[in-house]
């Protein structure tokens, strides 16, 4: 499936950071920096391997009590320095897998503030099996519910 196809957005986040956009962008593409901040709640960062070129892969291992329990991995699809980062994201091996996601992060800057807009959407496997309609309906509902819940 073409990664430029867009599915229903699962997650939409906007954040401002009091720093220039350049170091913020770089913190996504350096394994050493990325492991300092990227992890699901309750997990410790383990080994991180990043090949930040279009078509390159990344793999982040996470630990619990020193034991490897989770991997998040994907492929870089677009890298536009200081502006846009697009990559796939999937969990491996033993976490719920309802499809590979596509993550698009747009970067912008205003004065000394850098902003990020993140969109995460399903783009593989579910559509391949013709279930888009149901998922999309559900996800739009879930998203609405979540927004209310998380407010």
């Amino acid at each position, binding site marked *: 499936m073409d990664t430029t196809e867009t599915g229903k957005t*699962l*997650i939409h*986040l906007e*954040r401002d*950071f*009091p*720093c220039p956009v350049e*170091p*913020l962008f770089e*913190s996504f593409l350096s394994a050493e*920096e990325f492991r*300092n*901040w*990227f*992890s*699901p*709640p*309750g*997990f410790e960062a383990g080994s991180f391997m990043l090949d930040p070129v279009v078509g390159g892969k990344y793999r982040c291992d996470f630990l619990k009590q020193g034991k490897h329990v*989770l991997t998040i991995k994907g492929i870089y699809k677009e890298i536009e320095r200081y502006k846009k980062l697009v990559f796939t994201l999937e*969990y491996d091996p*033993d*976490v*719920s*897998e*309802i499809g590979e*996601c596509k993550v698009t992060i747009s970067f912008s800057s205003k004065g000394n503030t850098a902003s*990020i807009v*993140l969109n*995460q959407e399903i783009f593989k496997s579910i559509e391949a099996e013709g*279930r888009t*309609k*149901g*998922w999309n*309906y*559900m*996800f739009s509902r*879930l*998203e609405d*519910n*979540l927004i209310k*819940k*998380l407010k």
Partner: protein
Amino acid sequence: MKTKEEISSAELDRLFSSLGDSTRRQILTKVRSNPCNVLRLAAEFNMSLPAVSKHIKILSEAGLITKKKEGRFIYCSYNHNTMKPAMDWISQLHNLWNKSFDRLANYMKDKSKKK
């Protein structure tokens, strides 16, 4: 983060694909507020009994409704618990980024202090 045992991919597939039909969504909306018997649902949606029963079977297999026989009638009610795994899954994805961005903000602060 939940494991496959706690949040079954097949269950989620069944749940979401059962909701890919507008009639089934309307049936769910109807039974969400009050349990409703199958005959009444057929009349309300202007459908034959076999047709509405087929939709109810799909919703029931997905765990979205529960059927209960009372006298001569079968009543359908909405099962709120079924939505929870799907909500949990979305929450996990949301938390991954939200909490990571909290840490990123602190990381960027520390980084700029060191310079």
